[in-house]
C-alpha cells in the first residue's frame, strides 16, 4: 500500500494575533514617551560625565588649546591641602547634617501624623523653608547669626549662654552652616515621612496593641520597619545633597575662616571657573562622583537587608 505523503506546507506568516500587536504598540509608545528623558539624560547627565572624564586628562585653561596631561590632575589631588580640607569639611557637614535633618523631619512628621487640627496649614508652614531659595535663606541666617544683636545669640542670652561669633569662628562656622541647612532641609524629609506614616495599615498597630505592645514597642516594631523605604529614600537623597553643598557656604562664610567651611563643590567651582583649571576641576568632580557612587552603592547593598517593602 502506497503511503501517500502529504507535503508539509508552511503556513504563510499572517498578521500577529491582536494581543501581541497591542503589546508591541504599547512598547513603542512607552519608548516614545521615555525618549525625551533618555535624550535629556544622555545630553545633560551622561554626556557631561563622559566629558568630565575626558577633560580630567587634559591641561586646559578654557581659552588656549588643551594639552594631554594623563593622570597628572589626579596625582595632583594628593598634594593639594585645600582639596583634602574641602573633602573633610564636606564629610563633616554630611555626617552631622544628614542624621540631624532626618531626626527633625521624622519628629515633625510623627507630630503632624497625630491628627492635628489644621494639619494642612502646619504642613505648609513647615514646608516653607524647603520651598524658599537657599540664597534668600542664607542672607536671613547671616543676620540671625550676628554676634551682637542677632536673634540666635539673643535667644541663647535668655538662658544665660554667651553665644559665639558664629560665622567667623573656627569652631562654630561649620555648625552654624549645618544648623541652617537642617532648618532649610527638614521639610523635604518631613513630607516623605508623613506620606510613609499615612500609608502604614492601622491593622498593624491594632494587632500590636492586642499583643500588649507599648507605644515605644509599637514605634520600634511597626513604624520604623514600615518606614524603612522612606528612610532609605531620604538618607540616599540627603547624603547626595550634602555632598553637593555649595550655595549656603559660599554666601554665609565664603568658605572661611581660612578654608574651614570650603566644601568640595565650592572648590571645584573655583578651580574650574575662577582659576581656569578645567582639567583639575574635572578630576576633582570625578573623585566627588566616585565618593557619592560608592556611598550610594553601599546603601543599595544594605537596602536588601534593612529595608522592608510591604509586597
Amino acid at each position, binding site marked *: 500500500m502506497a503511503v501517500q505523503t502529504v507535503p508539509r506546507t508552511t503556513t504563510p506568516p499572517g498578521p500577529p494575533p491582536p494581543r501581541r500587536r497591542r503589546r508591541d504598540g504599547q512598547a513603542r509608545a512607552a519608548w516614545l514617551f521615555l525618549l525625551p528623558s533618555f535624550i535629556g539624560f544622555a545630553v545633560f547627565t551622561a554626556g557631561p560625565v563622559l566629558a568630565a572624564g575626558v577633560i580630567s586628562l587634559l591641561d586646559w585653561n*578654557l581659552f588656549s588649546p588643551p594639552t594631554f596631561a594623563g593622570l597628572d590632575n589626579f596625582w595632583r589631588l594628593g598634594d593639594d591641602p585645600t582639596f583634602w580640607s574641602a573633602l573633610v569639611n564636606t564629610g563633616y557637614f554630611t555626617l552631622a547634617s544628614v542624621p540631624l535633618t532626618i531626626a527633625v523631619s521624622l519628629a515633625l512628621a510623627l507630630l503632624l501624623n497625630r491628627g492635628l487640627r489644621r494639619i494642612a496649614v502646619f504642613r505648609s508652614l513647615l514646608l516653607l523653608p524647603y520651598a524658599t531659595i537657599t540664597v534668600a535663606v542664607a542672607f536671613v541666617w547671616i543676620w540671625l547669626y550676628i554676634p551682637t544683636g*542677632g536673634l540666635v545669640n539673643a535667644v541663647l542670652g535668655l538662658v544665660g549662654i554667651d553665644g559665639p*561669633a558664629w560665622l567667623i569662628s573656627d569652631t562654630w562656622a561649620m555648625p552654624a552652616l549645618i544648623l541652617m541647612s537642617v532648618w532649610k532641609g527638614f521639610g523635604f524629609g518631613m513630607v516623605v515621612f508623613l506620606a510613609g506614616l499615612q500609608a502604614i495599615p492601622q491593622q498593624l498597630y491594632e494587632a500590636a496593641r492586642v499583643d500588649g505592645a507599648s507605644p515605644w514597642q509599637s514605634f520600634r516594631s511597626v513604624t520604623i520597619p514600615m518606614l524603612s523605604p522612606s528612610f532609605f529614600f531620604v538618607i540616599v537623597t540627603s547624603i547626595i545633597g550634602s555632598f553637593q553643598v555649595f550655595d549656603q557656604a559660599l554666601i554665609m*562664610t565664603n568658605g572661611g*575662616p581660612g578654608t574651614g567651611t*570650603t566644601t568640595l563643590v565650592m572648590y571645584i567651582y573655583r578651580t574650574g571657573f*575662577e582659576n581656569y583649571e578645567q582639567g583639575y576641576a574635572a578630576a576633582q568632580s570625578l573623585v566627588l562622583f566616585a565618593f557619592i557612587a560608592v556611598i550610594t552603592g553601599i546603601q543599595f547593598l544594605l537596602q536588601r537587608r534593612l529595608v522592608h517593602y510591604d509586597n
Partner: protein
Amino acid sequence: MPHRLTRRDLLKVAALTGLLAGCGSRPDGAATWSMWSSSPEEAEVWANFSQYVEQRLGVRSVPNLTPSNGYPTKLDLQLVSGTASLVTAINGQLLPTYAARGALRPLDDLIAADPDFDADDFYPPIRAISSFAGRPYMVGFDVAPNVLYVNKTLLAERGIDAPSLTEPMTWARFRELAIELSAPPDRYGFTSAPDIDNLISWIYCAGGNVMNADATAGALDEPEAMEAFDFLVGLFVRDKVTPPITSLVPTNARANFMEGNVAFMQNGPWQVVNVRKAEFEWDIVPFPAGPAGSMPRVSGSGFAIPAAVGGADLELAWTLLKTLTSTGALNIYAGAGRNNPARYSAGSAFQPPPANVGIVQRILAGEIAGGHPFEVTTNWNQIKQMLDQDLPRGFLGQLTPAEVVAGLTPRLDVLMTQHQDNVRLAELRK
C-alpha cells in the same frame, strides 16, 4: 481632538530651533559689545552709549549687558564658544588673566596704525593697568584711586578740624584721629573691608607689594608689607576703632559709613554716587601717607577685543572700541557720575558734593599725593581667593599678622611660580 505631527509642524520646530541657536551667535554687521550692568541707572548709561555708537558709526549697536557678578562667567563662555561681542568690557584686575591665556587680542598694531588714536590722552595708571607683558590689551574707560571719605559732621561735633584736602595725613595722625573719634559701640573712627583689595593700598603706601619686583615670589613677608598689614590690623584688633566684623562675606564698609557713626572710610570714588544719599556732611581727602607716601591702589576698567575677532570684523571692532572710549562717550559716562573717566579730555564724572571731588583727577594726573596701579598676576583670582580666605584671621585677631603671612607665603610662592609659567606660555604663544 488629537493633533497629528505633520511635516509642516516639524519644519516649524526646526525653524524655531535654528532661531534659538542663532540667538547665541553674533549678528553680522552690528556693533556688538559686552558690558556689566547691575542697576537701571547703569543700564541707562549704556543705552546712551549705544545711541552714541549708532550715531557715530551708522551701524546697529547691540549692547550685551550682564549683571556684574555673573559677567566674568558669561564672558568666559562667550569667548570659548566664539560668541563673544566684537568688543568686551574687562576689569583691570582680570586683564592679565585673559591676556596671558590668549583670550584677548593685543592692540599695539591697531594703535600704531591709527593716527587718530591719542594714547597720551589717557591717565598713566590706566595705561599701565591696560597692558600685559608690555603690550596694550585694552583701552580704559574708567580709572580711580582709593581715597579717604570723611564724615565732616562727626568731626565737627567732636570739635576736630577736617583733614587737609590736599596734603595727606600721616599714618600716625590718622590713627590718632581714629582713636580719638572712636567710642564703641556708638561711634567708630574708621571702616574698611578686611580684604586684599583694601589692604593693598596700605601696602603700597608702605613701599611694599604682594609680589617682588619681577613677580617671581611673594613679598608679603617683606618688612614694608608687614608694617602695613600690622598697622591696619592694629586699627581693628588693638585700637578697636573699626566696627566689629560679624561676617566673612565682604563687609560692607559703605553701609557702616552711611549709618553716620563712622569718621573715616577707605573706598574708591565710585562710591560717591551712593554716599550722596548720606544724611551728614562729608568729603573726600587723599589717602593717608605711609613711609612711601600716599600711594593708594588705582583700579580701572576698559574695553578689549577678543582674540577670535579678525578679518572684516576687526576693523569694525577697533572703530567701535575707539568710539566707546572716545571723549564723547566718556563725557556721557562722566555725566552719569558713576566713576572717573579714563581720559584727561573727558569731563569730571562728579559734580559736588563732595566739594573736593576734583582731587581724583589731580591724583591721577600726579599733581597731588599719588597712586599706584593695582599690580596683579595672571592667576590673580587664585591669589585673591587665598588671601581673602586667610587675611581675615589677622583682622579678627585669631592669628597675628606674622602668623598669617608665615602661613600664606609658601602657597603664595607656588602661585607666583604658576604665574611665571603662565607668562612663559603666553610668550611662547606669540
